[in-house]
């Protein structure tokens, strides 16, 4: 049942990607509006698939790497949809929907059939750790999308190329606000996620901190985010520099999320 809904979600996400891309191409708000509803429908299918998976497997489905990818996609889509009515930045969907879709493709590769969970992960702290960290990371992903769009829009305005693509993009202030909001919420969530993870590590590995490559990279990214938040809140950074730094910090976070599991030996890889 859960895979059926997951496949449905995947298909509907794909339709919404097509919709968003078309909306940019034909420059009609109506198309983007419809795409947003389709995206919402996909999100609902996705949510249902989570519920079924929870009921069928008996564990919170955020344990295996594939489940985590799916949850990442879900959290990002959810946060975007929650924002959408307030910020009216449908064009952000053209960034979010393809990424969600790609994450879902990756996730769907390993979500069929039953996964046996190692004894060590059978702790309530593990799902909590994943949910907090991944939601924080999803918010950071959105912050970086808003940052990227900010840099594009700013470049166009600075260079007086405001008649074309610039019309599709939200105003600088709106993008900066989204970036700011996502950082404000992403940072405490990731911080809590790491803390919960280290509590669990104490019970599983015997110490809170391992200096594992994944931990180290995450720490580096965390420091960058801390710096960015400090500059924003204390120094009053806005706009260009903040957008740029949020992109850089996310690039580092991506290394920890993706590259480490592929190229390094890490104690933080389970299933």
């Amino acid at each position: 049942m859960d895979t059926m809904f997951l496949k449905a979600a995947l298909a509907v996400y794909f339709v919404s990607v097509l919709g968003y891309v078309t909306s940019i191409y034909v420059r009609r708000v109506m198309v983007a509006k419809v795409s947003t509803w389709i995206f919402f429908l996909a999100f609902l299918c996705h949510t249902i698939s989570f519920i079924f998976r929870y009921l069928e497997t008996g564990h919170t489905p955020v344990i295996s790497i594939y489940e985590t990818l799916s949850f990442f996609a879900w959290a990002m889509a959810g946060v975007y949809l929650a924002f959408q009515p307030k910020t009216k930045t449908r064009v952000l969907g053209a960034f979010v929907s393809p990424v969600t879709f790609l994450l879902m493709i990756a996730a769907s590769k390993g979500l069929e059939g039953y996964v046996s969970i190692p004894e060590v992960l059978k702790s309530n702290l593990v799902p909590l750790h994943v949910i907090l960290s991944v939601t924080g990371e999803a918010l950071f992903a959105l912050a970086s999308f808003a940052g990227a769009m900010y840099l594009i829009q700013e470049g166009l305005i600075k260079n007086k190329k405001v008649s074309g693509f610039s019309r599709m993009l939200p105003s600088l202030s709106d993008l900066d606000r989204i970036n700011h909001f996502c950082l404000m919420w992403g940072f405490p969530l990731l911080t809590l996620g790491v803390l919960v993870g280290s509590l669990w590590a104490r019970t599983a590995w015997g110490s809170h901190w391992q200096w594992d490559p994944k931990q180290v990279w995450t720490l580096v990214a965390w420091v960058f985010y801390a710096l960015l938040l400090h500059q924003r809140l204390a120094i009053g950074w806005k706009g260009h520099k903040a957008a740029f730094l949020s992109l850089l910090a996310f690039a580092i976070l991506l290394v920890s999320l993706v590259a480490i599991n592929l190229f390094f030996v890490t104690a933080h890889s389970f299933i």
Partner: protein
Amino acid sequence: MNIILIGMNHKTAPLEIRERLSLTCGNDANHLAEIMKFPEIQEVLYLATCNRVEVLANAVDTAGAVEKLRAFIFHHGNLSAEEMARCLYLHYDDEAVRHLFRVASSIDSMVMGEPQILGQVKDAYRTAVEHNTTGVILNRVLHHAFRVAKRVRTETGIAHNAVSVSFAAVELAKKIFGSLEGKTILLIGAGEMSELAARHLLNQGVRKILIANRTYARALQMAENFHGTATDFDTLAEKLRDVDIVISSTGAPGYVITPPMIEAAIRRRKNRLLFLIDIAVPRDIDPAVNEIDNVYLYNIDNLQDIVDTNVKSRQREAEKAEAIIDDEVGKYHEWFNTLEVVPTIISLREKMEGIVKSELVKSGSWMQNLNEEEKKNIEILAGSIINKILHDPITGLKEESRENGALPYIAALRRLFGLDDV
């Protein structure tokens, strides 16, 4: 169809001729009464704006009506025969309808896509309705024109994107700040264009306006006009700390605003975005300030370039609008053709028979207890009720059509029985 449109606009007639005609006629209703006195004309609409004078009429006798209308314009406009030939255009039937649709959709306007013309057409129509000079045909044409104008507005980009320098400045400000609610402007120097831009910005919710001028008295006077605050020219650098948008148009030979001033201000204002508009020639603001983070500088040429691009894009959108209008003229034509007696009678009958058929289907459940003959009798009864009901209206229509006055009856009948699916 006996629709005539005669008129002149900014493309065909110079201002002095247009104003002669619109001055004498004004936009009051006297001329409507005057035109209605012509026996050749049944319905009339008169539209006069700064850019056009148009008379739309439904005639009994087209040739006679045109002659009378020409004489009317000749008389009021004081035109020579040569001027008349050069300035006036004349359209019939579908082409007259098309012209009206184009006017209402603002394709025929001097600034293509400007929104006022639709309101002016509506006003002219209201005047005509108040004086009872429109009937079945013109009412339909005008309502159709309003629908077409709306469709063109929503389906094409003809009204998108600023086509004046001051509106281009407003659009840029929105691109930077999103909403302009609660923002503050600093207006340096005076000038028509900068003041216009300031007014547009104020209309968009800008909260506060500061005005600086070399002569403080002038600043005070402008401040009064704008309900703003006059400020000392020497404290400009300080003021840059608190404002969001600066519009500069002084006659100063050198730069009034320099990079060090902006850099200092940006630090003090905690990096809040700053939008600078330099309308002065020679320029007031050192172009190097555009390099500073979170500062956006546009000069008059930059704004003019935007306007030029936007004008071109409106022209492209106008092509889409023409296609819509083609389509709608076709629809109008179709409707007009239904205003014949015979098709109306046929569709009235079809409607009635349709109702009987569907009611018989609905009653099928209880009628199954009846035998075939009883069912047949019920159908015959229903059929003869239709015939009796329709007998008088159909006879009446046929009689009216022999006397050429059937049009209003047909239109009313179609409307009351819902025979047009529009």
